[in-house]
């Protein structure tokens, strides 16, 4: 028999490869064996396409928007980080920053007004297109959700988002959360993942309205854009509304009454 070292090593390599595939195959073959199926739950709110209408005449100052931001950020344990590595889910900005409609002769009222900005939950979200792991994805009800467990922190979604709605955890966010004020029902995030507004999916699942809507005293309406009888559709019928950067074709689901 021609037993050279080369043949021996080849055999060894093949054997090792075989063992690896067998082990991997077995590992894949074992499924969880789930005995039960999950349900949405009886209180859960559902829609074909969730949307938001913000009456900026009613919530048009920095102070008023800060109330919404505080409600949102405290319920979601959003850290308060100074500097430009900060994290925000909803915040205030002026007309020129919020909308790409520069106007030298804007009326005094709109010029002074502040607008709440947040994730637009686009129907055609560029962030979802860009994400290489489906860590950000669009749910059937139109919400652009985040799976922080899967996010690799490549920040491609941040480059893709035309609305600056996404924040990256440059550092451990827990260092900037007041332990006494933490919402014990909701997780924090970890270092190295991207986060943003989720239209409060966890509250909708329990039959509650989003935190900012609840805190807005009726200035922010939330509902099903696909339902012609919903409150949001009624508002859209009765008022002139605009969306942020509609020309990009992302189809934002957040409307602003001017």
């Amino acid at each position, binding site marked *: 028999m021609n037993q050279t070292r080369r043949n021996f090593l080849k055999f060894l390599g093949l054997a090792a490869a075989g063992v690896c595939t067998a082990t991997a195959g077995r590992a894949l073959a074992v499924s*969880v064996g789930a005995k*039960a199926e*999950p349900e949405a739950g009886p209180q859960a709110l559902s829609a074909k396409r969730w949307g938001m209408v913000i009456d900026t005449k009613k919530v048009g100052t920095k102070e008023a928007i800060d109330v919404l931001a505080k409600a949102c950020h405290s319920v979601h344990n959003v850290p308060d980080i100074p500097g430009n590595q900060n994290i925000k889910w909803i915040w205030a900005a002026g007309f020129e920053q919020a909308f790409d409609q520069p106007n030298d002769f804007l009326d005094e009222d709109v010029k002074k007004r502040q607008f709440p900005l947040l994730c637009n939950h686009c129907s055609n979200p560029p962030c979802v297109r860009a994400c290489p792991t489906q860590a950000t994805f669009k749910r059937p009800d139109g919400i652009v959700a985040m799976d922080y467990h899967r996010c690799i922190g490549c920040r491609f979604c941040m480059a893709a988002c035309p609305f600056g709605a996404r924040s990256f955890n440059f550092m451990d966010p827990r260092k900037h959360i007041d332990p006494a004020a933490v919402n014990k*029902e909701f997780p*924090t995030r*970890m270092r190295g993942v991207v986060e943003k507004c989720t239209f409060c999916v966890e509250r909708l699942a329990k039959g509650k309205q989003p935190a900012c809507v609840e805190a807005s005293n009726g200035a922010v309406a939330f509902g099903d854009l696909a339902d012609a009888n919903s409150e949001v559709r009624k508002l859209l019928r009765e008022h002139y509304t605009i969306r942020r950067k509609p020309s990009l074709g992302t189809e934002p689901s957040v409307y602003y009454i001017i």
Partner: protein
Amino acid sequence: MKLYNGGKIITGLVIFLCVFLAPFAYNAGKAAYSQPKVQLPKDEKECIESKEYMRTNHMKLLNQWRDWALRDGKRVYVNSKGKSFEISLQNTCMKCHPNKAEFCDKCHNDAAVSPYCWDCHYQPDGGLKK
């Protein structure tokens, strides 16, 4: 038959064996491994599934729970006996097992695994610790 480079080969083999057997030597004479005593909930007798199922499958179940809740939007788990639970590590599991150090860590430390659950999820007894 002549063994070429015999000295080097034998020295190499001896070193290899020493390294290979080191863990056995390290543990020799120590008491046999016993399962850790985890702190069980006082006022709850049954977990969402049987003890045996949870012991072997809790990590897979949690993985599925995560996908069901986050990705599929289904946040109620109906167990094999027909009982319903909210799908939530923080609000269901940790309600009965509030102390990570006395429950989770006991086995995880022995098995030398460190899941990153508590990088984000809150420990009722440990707060924002990891």
